[in-house]
Structure formats: C-alpha cells, structure tokens
C-alpha cells in the first residue's frame, strides 16, 4: 500500500540549522526535503493525526533536533538526521499551534543546561460545552517540555477558534490575532512554571489576519482582511517594563487606537485582498508581505518603499526564513513550496505537491473526470487552477511536470472565467486531450476549446498538436474518450451530437520532411437530437458506446453506423465504461435517481443494477472486474456513526465481478466526494521489491479522495488493508550528486568488470563496527549516537556467534 498526495502547505515548514533541509508537515508525518534538489530525503512518522507545528531546535549546523505538535494531542521530539523519535509528550488535546520562545532566542546550550523548556500551545478544548452561546474553543496554554507536563490551570487566553501563535525571532514576545485585536505576550526572562507572561492588546478596526514580530526592535506588524498592513512601533514599553500603568496620551502616539501600549502605528496599503503572509527579514530591514494576489511584496521598513516578486501563480500562504540568509521559502496555495534565493528573489527550486482541489463555477462542479490516469506509467493528470494539467507520479509521490493548457496570465484573486473542464489520456499515455471553457461575460464571449496533445518522444512532455475552437458549436463537451489502440478519439456534447476525431500522421517522404500531423473530424453522429452525456470505446476498439441521456447508443466508430440502442435508465447517464474485455458495459447515472447499471452487450439488456450514488468507476483492463467509488447515503451514515471506526467515512469502494452483483471486496473510505478511482498497471520496478510476497499484483487500484490524497493497493490480495508494500523508491540523497572533477569534464569512466567468478561476497552487515567510524569526522553523526550503534552491533555479533 502506498499513500501519498498529502498537502505540504497545511502548516508552515521549517528549515534545518544548515538550511539544507526543509521540514514540511504532510498530514500525519513530517517530510524532510532537500533544499538543493527539492526531493524528499526522509520522513518522521509516528503522529496519528495531522502535524500542525514543527520547530527545529536552533544551534550549530550539525544539531538535528526538532519538536513537532499534532492534532492527536502529542508533542514529539525527534532527531531528524537519523530519523528517530526521542521523546513523546501527551497533552491530550489537539494542538493547533506551538511555539517554544525560550529555545528560539538562545543558542542550544540552554538545552543542555537542563533549564525547563516551556512551550506555548494553542489547543482546542473539546470539553467546552456547545450550549454556551459564545463557546471558546481555542485556548493558549503553557507546557513544560522538560518535565513533560502542562502547567496546570494556566490559560493565557481563550479564543473562539484555536489561533496560530506567532513568536518573535528573539524569543521575547509571542502573540496571536483575535478578531480585531492583537494579543502580545512578553516571555519572562527566566521562565518557570509559575511566572506569568504579561499581555498587551492592540486594537484595529478591521479583522486582523496575520502578525509578525521584528527580530530586534519592538515592532509588530499585522495584516488585515482588507489588505492593509499596520506597523506598531515601540509596543509594550509601559506594560512590559513597569507594570499596569495606564496613561492615555493619544496625541503622543500617532495612529494608535485608544490606550493601546505602543508609540506609533503606521498603515501601508498595497494588497487588494487579505494579507496572508507577513514576515520580517532576519536583519529587520525589510518586511515581506503576500496574499491572495500571489505577489510577494518587500517593504523597506524605514521608507515604506516596495519591491515585488510578481506572478507566483497562486495565493501565498507562508513565508519562512532559513538560517542561511540567502535562502527562504514561500508556500503557495496550490501545494507548492518555492525556494527563493533571497536578495534577488529568484525561484531556485520548487517542491511541488499534488494540486489541491479547487472549486469550479456552476455547472462544471460535479464533472466526474477530474482526474485522468495513465494506466502504464502510474501518473495522474489533475487540472490546476492556473489553466494547466499537473502530472503527478503516484508511485514516487512527487509532481512530474505541468502542462499549460491555456496561455493566460493567472491572477489568483480574479473571478474564475476560464476553466479546464476535462482531461483525458489515451491508454498508453501518449495522447492527451483537454477541454477548456471560457465563461461568457453577460452572454458574450464564451468559448469551448478542445485541444489534442501528443507526448514528445525525447523529453516525455506533452506538446500541443491541434486546437479546435467550438468543436460542437457553442455546446459544452460532456466527455472525451480515446480509442484504445488507434489514433482516434470521440467527443460527445450536450448539444446533441458526438464527433469522432482521427489523427492523420502524414509523414512525407524524405524529400519533404514537412510533418503535418493533426486531428481532424472523421464523423459526426447524433441520436434523436438528445444530449450526449458520456462516451467510451470498448477495449478492442470495435464498438463505441455513447450515452444519449438515458439510453446507450452503440456505434461502429469506423463506418459511423448505429449498431444498437440499449436502455433506458431513470436519469441521464454520466459515465460509461466497458468492463475489461468482457461483453459488459457499466453505466452510472446520478441525480435525481442515482443508479449503477451493468449491461450485457450480447443480449443488449440490463444485467443488474444498484441504486447507488457512484462517484467514480474504474474497470480493470484484463480481468472481468470493476471497482466503483460509492457515496454512502445519509441514512446509513447515521446508523454507522456510533461506531468509532467509521468516523468521517462517507464512501466505499466496491469491487465487483461483472457477472455477479455481490461485491467481491469492499473498503470504506473518507472524503469520497470528488474522489477518483482507477486501475493501474503494477509497475515492474515496483514489483521487484515485492517479489517475496509471492504472487505480485498485476494491477493496482488507486483511490484519490476529495482532498487529493491517494492510496494505492492491490485489490485482489486478501489482506489488502494490511499488506504493506515498501516504497518503490529509496529516499534520494540529500545533496545533488553533480559530477565533479574528472567526471565533469570527461564523463563517467566505464566500469571495468573484474573476473566475476572470483568474486567474494562481501558481508558488510556482519561487521558494522568496522564501518561505523569510517568517514570524515564532520559527516559522522553525534558521538552518543555512534556509541549506541557501535555497542549494539557488537552485541548482535555475540548472539550470532552463539548460534
């Protein structure tokens, strides 16, 4: 079983001390990426719910310790170089945010001196009764990490929702935003369990969204929902120094509201929408801000002058500084983390996660073909918000590349007016077709555009082959399907016709090398002027099935002759699929009367059907089985809801044999709405590692849920839920292994193989004590770790000898 596709942007990431690694919260794990290659090098697994905070303990470059907090109510302490879990604290309440001011400010030796380390947590108190009109769910609490306990009864602040805590890089202050107020606490110099942090509150007239502290001075900046940035200078001199001395001197504090404790407050306004990102540079000279527009703005703090990094492509969510002043990262809403080279703001590398689902306007909402799967290479093609298609490798769990379908500038803040509504891949993955729709403005300027793409032979990327404007006049396209073997495709439209397209690969003789390959319409068909709602080719390509609302019409794709009509269902069919090589056809219809039907093509009649709301259908290529993703009806949800197991599970994957209406297997899943399902060819290299399991799976089933997290499993193995398949890919090296020295000039030397017969099998694993201490000293793990491993290896040897 392979899981993947998690969001990289749920929480801010953190850089390691040498700025060579980036720790990213990915669902229940923390993934560690190399900043030079943007590939994953390790992961910290252990949390049972989403990880919300990751804090790297600062110090010298070799120190690789971090704290993580999660919604499962635990705080864990890791050595992420190994990686290994060192310590676990259970606070029993979901933690939304955690800061540890005392370790941020001072270098690491405070860690060694065994002074208590205190963390401030933002937690959700579930015990708060719902019946109170203004339930305060969020609490800010303090926790003694050294003693592994909460500081009893100390609740710094209660908020309606758990808030994100921001800490200053000096570790002296931390704060939260709370509606139109800003709460700032000063951390006591010598922190102990009893000492109470002092609090001031700063007010604003709009709801605040984000705040940031100046690294050295007493400056706090906050962004609000209207796009303004407020900078309070000299906050808290009165409160934090002398105590509760309330003097109202409005005229001395320009811009400061009421009797807030600040010297001055200035406002900057450039953003047109909510400010999401706010961060001071490490030297405190600049302020970075960003928001929905996808533009990173750099403010010179003294003058207010601006510099921009425009067209990042999606709303910014988070800006993280690294210990290396030339490197920082920004997280974007489309699941990308860009590494920025700092003063020039060039994007060095991009960690690209799976594209997150985005909303489609109006009638394009519920279209089933949100995903297209490449059967052979295990890729999924997803539509992106910026009019593109992302290819994501399911086996490797990283983004391969993106294809820009529509050459337009994407402005994240704008109303959506151009949508890629369909994407289809041919079975061998060499052809792609996309449909994009330009929505009209008050009835004018709408456009449907069908595009065919061909996979380049050398760079393995799709290039545009043919553009067809308004393929079915102004009617929308309901489905595109490729012929399984030939260069043929069909598009069906709501306007009542379908068109068969063929690709004419005219490669002329050698004299005229002009290659004129393009897709052209071969045939047009219609059935009683009914809207055509779905289309599919049979596996051998001899039959084309097109759904005309409630009936299914079968055509000969070559001669364009209507062969038969079968039907009908109660409501329009939305998906058609041939079940493998069999003579069965699976159809799905949705509202108002959802139905899953299996039709027998030889008898031209209904074989069996269910009344189920089906989200997706996947048919195995070789076998007679197919899988459906069914949404559980509301009623059954209620009956099962008392079981703790089915919490949040709103769908089920059912595996059927076409002959038999009783499912062969079933799995219940979460977030099935908007999910996808497909069979994939078991990757040969993937199989190699599982050869020990005996019969290697021929086909794998992939399920992508509504949040685009996915799981790959073998549907035919009996203990499919338990079977654990090792990751295909070994985690890649941390550093980019560029060729150096001789190899960079002359290339790699060919390997001269010695006489193979005299090869003595070397057994390095049996004598680890010889290799543990080899290598240059700066590469070695800490001595304490080495000693443990060394002793352990010796012990292993002893037992082996006894046997």
């Amino acid at each position, binding site marked *: 079983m392979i899981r993947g596709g998690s969001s990289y942007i749920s929480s801010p990431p953190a850089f390691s001390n040498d700025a060579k690694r980036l720790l990213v919260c990915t669902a229940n794990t923390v993934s560690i990426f190399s900043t030079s290659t*943007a590939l994953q090098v390790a992961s910290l697994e252990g949390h049972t719910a989403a990880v919300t905070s990751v804090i790297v303990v600062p110090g010298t470059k070799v120190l690789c310790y971090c704290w993580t907090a999660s919604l499962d109510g635990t705080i864990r302490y890791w050595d992420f170089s190994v990686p290994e879990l060192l310590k676990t604290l259970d606070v029993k309440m979901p933690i939304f945010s955690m800061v540890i001011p005392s370790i941020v400010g001072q270098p690491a030796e405070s860690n060694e001196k065994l002074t208590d380390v205190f963390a401030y947590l933002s937690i959700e108190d579930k015990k708060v009764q719902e019946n109170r009109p203004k339930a305060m769910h969020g609490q800010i609490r303090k926790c003694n990490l050294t003693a592994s306990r909460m500081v009893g009864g100390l609740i710094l602040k209660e908020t309606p929702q758990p808030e994100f805590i921001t800490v200053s890089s000096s570790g002296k202050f931390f704060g939260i935003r709370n509606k139109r107020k800003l709460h700032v606490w000063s951390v006591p110099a010598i922190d102990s369990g009893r000492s109470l942090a002092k609090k001031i509150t700063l007010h604003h007239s709009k709801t605040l969204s984000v705040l940031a502290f100046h690294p050295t001075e007493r400056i706090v900046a906050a962004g609000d929902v209207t796009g303004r940035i407020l900078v309070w200078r000299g906050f808290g001199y009165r409160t934090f120094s002398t105590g509760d001395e309330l003097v109202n001197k409005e005229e001395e504090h320009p811009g400061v509201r009421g009797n807030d404790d600040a010297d001055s407050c200035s406002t900057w306004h450039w953003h047109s929408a909510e400010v999401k990102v706010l961060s001071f540079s490490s030297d405190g000279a600049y302020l970075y801000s960003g928001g929905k527009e996808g533009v990173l703005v750099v403010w010179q703090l003294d003058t207010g002058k601006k510099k921009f990094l*425009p*067209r*990042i*492509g999606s709303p910014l969510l988070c800006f993280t500084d690294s210990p290396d002043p030339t490197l920082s990262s920004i997280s974007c809403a489309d699941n*990308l983390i*860009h590494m920025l080279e700092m003063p020039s703001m060039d*994007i060095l*590398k*991009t960690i*690209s996660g799976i594209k997150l689902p985005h909303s489609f306007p109006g009638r394009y909402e519920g279209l089933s073909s949100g995903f297209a799967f490449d059967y052979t290479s295990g890729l999924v093609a997803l539509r992106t918000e*910026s009019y593109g298609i*992302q290819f994501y490798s399911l086996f490797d769990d990283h*983004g391969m*590349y*993106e294809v*820009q379908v529509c*050459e*337009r*500038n*994407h*402005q994240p803040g*704008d*109303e959506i*007016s*151009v949508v890629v509504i369909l994407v289809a891949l041919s079975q061998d993955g060499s052809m792609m077709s996309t449909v994009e729709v*330009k929505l*009209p*403005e*008050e*009835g*004018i*300027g709408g*456009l449907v555009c069908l595009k065919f793409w061909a996979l380049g032979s050398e760079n393995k990327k799709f290039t545009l082959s043919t*553009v067809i*404007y*308004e393929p079915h006049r*102004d009617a929308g396209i309901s489905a595109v399907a490729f012929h399984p073997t030939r260069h043929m495709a069909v598009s069906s439209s709501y306007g009542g016709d379908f068109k068969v397209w063929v690709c004419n690969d005219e490669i002329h003789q*050698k*004299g*005229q090398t*002009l290659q*004129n390959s*393009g897709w*052209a319409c071969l045939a047009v068909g219609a059935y009683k002027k009914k809207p055509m709602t779905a289309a599919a080719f049979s596996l051998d390509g001899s039959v084309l099935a097109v759904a005309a609302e409630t009936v299914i019409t079968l055509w000969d794709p070559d001669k364009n002759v209507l062969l038969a009509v079968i039907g009908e269902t109660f409501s329009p069919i939305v998906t058609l699929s041939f079940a493998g090589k069999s003579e069965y056809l699976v159809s799905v219809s949705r509202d108002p009367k959802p139905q899953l039907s299996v039709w027998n093509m030889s008898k031209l009649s209904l074989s069996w059907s269910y009344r189920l709301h089906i989200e997706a259908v996947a048919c195995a290529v070789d076998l007679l089985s197919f899988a459906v993703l069914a949404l559980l009806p509301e009623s059954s949800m209620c009956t099962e809801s008392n079981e703790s197991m089915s919490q949040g599970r709103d769908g089920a994957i059912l595996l059927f044999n076409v002959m038999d209406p009783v499912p062969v297997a079933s799995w219940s899943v979460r977030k099935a709405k908007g999910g996808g399902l497909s069979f994939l060819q078991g990757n040969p290299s993937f199989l190699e590692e599982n050869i020990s399991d005996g019969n290697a799976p021929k086909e794998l089933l992939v399920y992508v849920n509504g949040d685009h997290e996915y799981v790959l499993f073998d549907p035919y193995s009996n203990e499919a839920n338990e079977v654990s398949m090792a990751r295909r890919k070994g985690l890649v090296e941390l550093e980019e292994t560029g060729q150096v020295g001789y190899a960079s000039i002359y290339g790699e030397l060919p390997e001269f193989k010695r006489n193979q017969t005299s090869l003595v099998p070397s057994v390095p694993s049996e004598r680890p004590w010889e290799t543990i201490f080899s290598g240059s000293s700066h590469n070695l793990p800490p001595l304490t770790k080495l000693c443990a491993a060394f002793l352990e290896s010796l012990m292993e040897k002893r037992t082996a000898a006894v046997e």
Partner: protein
Amino acid sequence: MAEPNSTFKPIKPKLKPKPRTPKQTPESKYWSSFKTHQIPDLISSITSLTFSPSPPHPFAATHSTSLKIFNPQTLSPSSTISSFSDVVSSASFRSDGLLIAASDLSGLIQVFDVKTRTPLRKLRSHTRPVRFLKYPLHDKLHLVSGGDDAVVKYWDVASETPLLELLGHKDYVRCGDFSPVSHEMCVTGSYDHTVKLWDVRVTGSKTVMEVNHGKPVESVVFLPSGGLVATAGGNSVRIWDFIGGGKMVYSMESHTKTVTSVCVGRVGKENVEEGREHRVLSVGLDGYMKVFDYGRMKVTHSMRFPAPLMSIGFSPDCGVRVIGSSNGVMYVGKRKMKEENVESSLRSFWSLGVEQERRVMRPSYFRYFHRGQGEKPKEGDYLVMGPKKVKLAEHDKLLKKFRHKEALVSVLGNKNPENVVAVMEELVARRKLLKCVENLDNEELGSLLMFLQKYSTVPRFSGLLMGLTKKVLEMRVEDIRASEALKGQIRNLKRSVEEEIRIQHSLQELQGIISPLLRIAGRG
C-alpha cells in the same frame, strides 16, 4: 517540476486553420527564389534564348533582326549584334563560349566572335529560313542547322561547307538538340510531327530512330542522362526513352495552349539528393512556365506570366532563368548565389585580417578592455542562450497594468482585427469588457463602432462581435442619439448587417435546394 509563471504572457489571437497540404514545398520555394526582373522594350518576340557554356554564363537573346548578349550579373546587354538582313531565328554558343552562331530567316548562318562582334564565317546553303542551329557539346568545329526547307545540315564551320545533308523530314524543321554524351548524335523536331535521331557517322542520311509526337514539334531537348528526350508540341510535353527503343515515358499535358519551348533546369543540390535534381522547364502560349520532375512524373511548380511565352533558357550554374515573351519582354529570374556569398565573406575575412594586423590592441586603449565582446559565434560553438525577452505590444503593456480601457482603445487604433478580438476576449475573461464599453468617450466609441461595422459580420469574429454590438447599442443608446457622427456609424452598421442577412438568406435557399439532393444521393 513546475515552472513559475514569472513572465507576463502577451495575449495571442486565435489560431487560424492550417491548410491540409503545405502551401510551399521546398521545391516551389526554390523556384520562387528566382527574383524576377523584367527586361522590356526588345522589339517583337524573343525567338530563342541561349546560355554560354563557360562561366560567368552570359546569355544571348534573339529578337527581330538583332542578337543581344546579356551579362548575367547586371542583366544589362553587354553587346548587340545587328548585322542581319532578316529576323534572327536562333543562336548557339560554341562549347568554349568564344564564338556564337546565329541564323536568320533569310537562310544565312553567321558565326561571330563574342567579344569583337565581328562576323567570322557566313554559312550559306539553306534556301529557306533557318529555324534552328546548334553547336555540339564538345566539338568546336561543327554545327547542325535546320529550316523550312526540311533539310538538316551538318556543317564544317571552318570551311563554311555543309558536310552532310540529312534528309527525311517532310515538313519544316523547327528545332533540334545535340546529345549531351556524344557530339555525333543529334535530334531534330519538325512540323511533320516526328522527332528524328541522327548520327553524323551514318552516311546516306538515314535516321537512327524516329518517334511521332502527334503534334507539330516546337521544341526538343536531350535530358542530361543522354537517353531521354523531351519534346514539346501542341499542349503536351512528352518524354521519350531513346535507349529503350524510342517509347514514350510520359506525356505531360498541363499546358492549355501550345508549348513553345522546353529546356533543362536544375534544382540546387541542397534540396534534392544526387541524380534527382534535373527538371524539364516548359513555357507555352498560355503564359505558364511549368516545372516538371521527370523522375517522379509530377509537375512540381507552375508560374504565370502576363504574356504568351516563346522561349526559355536556364543557366548551367542555376543562377539565372530567362523567359522570353511574344511581345518583346524578357522575364529574367535571378537567384542569389551561395558561391558569391562565400567569396565575399572570404574576402571580408581576409580584409578583416589585414585590419587586425594594422591595429594591434594595447592595454593603453580603452577598447582593449572591451575586446572580444562583439565576437560572433563560430559554427561549432555551443551557444548559451540568454532568456528570451518577450516583446510586449502597447495593449499588452496596458493589460499588464490593468488599464483595460486604454488597452482596448490602443488596440482599436492599430487596425489588426485579430488582435482587437484577442484583447476583447481577454477582457471578457477578466470580466471587464462591458465596463470598458461603458467608459469609452464618444470618439473612442466611434472607433469601436467603426470596427464593429467592419468586422462583426466576418464569420471568424461574429460569435463575439454580434453579441458585443448588441450590448454596445443597448448600453450607449443615449450617447449615440446625441451625436450625429455616431448615428452615421450606426446606419453603416445596419447596412452591413442587413447585407449579411441577405447573404445568409440566399445561402439558406441554396442549402434548401442541395440538401434533398444529398439525401437522395445518400439513400442511393
């Protein structure tokens, strides 16, 4: 990995459909690369054109009672020979290009020195007009001529005597050619429809071979292999295989009037593989020049001229193609020669070297520190390309700054309907088009209306523009009523729309007539 979209993408107009067949083959590109110059004001029709076999291949044109020799570089007449008593019918250079022989309709053949223009020999024997004469390829001593007396004569030029009188033609002999592989074989074509192959070694004036073209033969030419002969007569050009016993290989019938002349052309080596580069060029009274690829039996290029064409010549170095018309205009196609470029670049290279020698850079010059910056890459060098700068048009710059109305106005100003529609589509995508229309002042509205009047009925744009026109009229009705100029625009707009409606009606009528026929045909 995802590329950040850090550059602004300019708007692009919609693509136009591509023709299924490519518009230009490499070969037609080659033939169009001959840049046509006109040499007018030659009196009467140009009866023959011939190229000198020696470089730089000057060519001679005969017209009226004179013979003009042209320089192929400047295309200006280098010398004129006019010592003829009658219309000059044919001319031929000797194989070394030093002498030229010309015949006239009085039956006299004269041999001139090309440089001095002095007549060296006068060959008198033909009693009727001489129509053709030809020097053999390597033989400097003999030539062959033929004329209206139906006799073909083989001359010894030095002694001014006909060595052989080849009898056999029953009508005027109009044309002939020597074999490119042997200086003893020649073909002649006559108005008796036959083409005869003669061997001067055979005595007794017997033809070696004879083929029947079927029409009076106007022109005949040996193809470079020496085995094939192309003949022109009537509307057809025929290729004969003489080695294979004189059978017809192909008959090209794409001229619509009489073909007057054929010659052998060559496609430059860079386009076609070895041995396939020769073409038959033919001209006819229909004003067409056709290029016929006799390897693939296909007409590969065709070119139209505004007058009936009488003669054609093609220079041996593929640099010049001359066509003579019946009204005294010569169409000279000249190609830029690669060799020239090489030579000139070589020269410039040498001159550069000389210059460098003269001025040795010393660190005392300021320019010393900038030396080598303007260095051009050599052929084998690996080029590291800098990022390409996207050139933005005025409307793109305005769109980038979100100044939507200005962008619309600016693109309306520069008369490219595709760009205007592309900007409008972009504005629709940004949901700003109607707001722009609302904010246009009267003058700008006028230009918009003018655009709409011009293009709203064009099928490619009408989908968007019809809807927009309606909206514009709805929104700006008050302003239009107030202004006389705008009212005039609206009247024009109305007229063009009405015309379009009329066209659509008549087209629908046509469809109504045709569709039952199609239905019946489909049933049958």
